[in-house]
């Protein structure tokens, strides 16, 4: 029933002076689809994510997004007020460091409730109820709702950030190394949680990571980046089980060896 992709990226490039951040990126993202972007640090995947999520203007190319009413907007041609509105309603960003996405000075409940208040919700009890429900979904005890995030562990902070991002019911979520900086056991639990949420909510997502295990678990499709360019793309299992590009082969084999 959906004939247009949720996100359409065409000829996206970003240069830093002479240096290439990313070059000639094209892809479509469909509703409910999770796209993984993998590569080493410096491969351009974070630059690409910043451009896709409207936080860094590209040097060339377009990013088009399909609104709820079916109309398409060019992300960088639209006025900033509309872009900001989009960012706090239809979009969510999960930062690698949860501190970048949270207000560390206010309670967990306020963190989750903020996006609801930003779109005009004015009933305290309902806002608090929604916050409590979301804390439960991300497996944070109800009793911690009034605690400051500073008292949370790293894994809890990341889950709190996810609740804060998803509370407004976004249709597209950008994740930057969502499990980076966490212990291995904590990573596994978080990945499980994320996979459950993405499936339950039918979310579309773009996940940037250097960790192939993350994309294996979350992503339907995969793009492998090197020196700012996509060297291989396809269905996740296909790319990982039968890599064609030598660089992908190297990535996959280095994981297998460790």
């Amino acid at each position, binding site marked *: 029933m959906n004939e247009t992709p949720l996100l359409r990226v065409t000829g996206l490039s970003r240069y830093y002076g002479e240096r290439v951040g990313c070059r000639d990126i094209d892809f479509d993202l469909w509703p409910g689809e999770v796209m993984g972007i993998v590569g080493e640090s410096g491969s351009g995947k974070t630059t690409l994510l910043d451009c896709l999520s409207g936080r860094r203007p590209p040097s060339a190319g377009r990013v088009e997004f399909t609104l709820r009413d079916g109309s398409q907007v060019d992300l960088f041609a639209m006025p900033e007020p509309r872009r900001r509105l989009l960012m*706090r309603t239809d979009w969510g960003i999960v930062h690698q460091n949860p501190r970048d996405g949270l207000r560390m000075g206010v309670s967990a409940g306020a963190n989750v409730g903020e996006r609801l208040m930003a779109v005009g919700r004015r009933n305290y009890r309902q806002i608090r109820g929604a916050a409590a429900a979301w804390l439960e979904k991300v497996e944070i005890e109800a009793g911690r709702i009034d605690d400051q995030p500073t008292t949370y562990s790293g894994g809890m902070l990341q889950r709190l950030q996810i609740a804060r991002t998803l509370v407004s019911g976004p249709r597209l979520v950008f994740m930057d190394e969502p499990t980076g900086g966490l212990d291995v056991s904590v990573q596994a639990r978080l990945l499980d949680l994320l996979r459950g949420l993405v499936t339950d909510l039918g979310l579309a997502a773009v996940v940037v990571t250097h960790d192939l295990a993350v994309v294996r678990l979350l992503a339907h499709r995969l793009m492998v980046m090197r020196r700012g360019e996509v060297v291989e793309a396809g269905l996740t299992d296909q790319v990982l089980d039968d890599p064609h590009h030598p660089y992908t082969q190297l990535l996959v084999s280095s994981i297998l060896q460790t």
Partner: protein
Amino acid sequence: MTTATGYNFAYLDEQTKRMIRRAILKAVAIPGYQVPFGSREMPLPYGWGTGGIQVTASVIGSADVLKVIDQGADDTTNAVSIRRFFARTAGVATTRRTTEATIIQTRHRIPETPLREGQILVYQVPIPEPLRWLEPRESETRKMHALADYGVMHVKLYEDIARHGRIATSYDYPVLVNDRYLMRPSPIPKFDNPKMHMNPALQLFGAGREKRIYAVPPYTKVVSLDFEDHPFEVQRWDDCCALCGAADSYLDEVITDDRGGRIFVCSDSDYCTGRIGP
């Protein structure tokens, strides 16, 4: 127009007054919006009413009658100092009666006596930016105003309720003006907030150090922020004024001895005096 002091009428030169009047006109045209202006150094210190003084100096004429209050009273030291400043540099008539004044410069109160059309209430503003404690950067707060991105303001109110069971802001309580701009009413008690709403008088706000002027034109909607299930409410006292018996005015607590004795009296000295009778 030079007075006996050797300074121009109401101290400021006419060019500066014109610049400030332009800022005031813009402020009136966009209620609640903070208009940057070329605030001048005044012979009174920043933080002591330089914004209000510049606004008053720009709108006052020789026929005006000026009242100056601080904490509601005409006799507090800073009110005396500012009233004298204008008596000396503009030679205008001054009054303590709210009803007689055409311009009232105030710090921290709105008079209890309702204002009428044609009167101007000039507020002294220390920090004009309502988002300042939530976002210290001017470049960011201006963007937030431009986009009416005010969700974070309710985050603070949410925190109050979560922690204290109620909104714990008792003065300088944020308001939304004309359904558009978030505004600090200056540190008036929230008791005074409802008086700003649909007031027949022109309300002008001057922040000298921060170099901003904003305004609430007559009969403009001014709504104090709240939640549907935690509505805005004003302070109430169990006592009445010990001098005039008023039960509807903002009361100051006065310590009468060192054994815990205290009484409450009207903060608005003109209102209190008027009730006691001549």
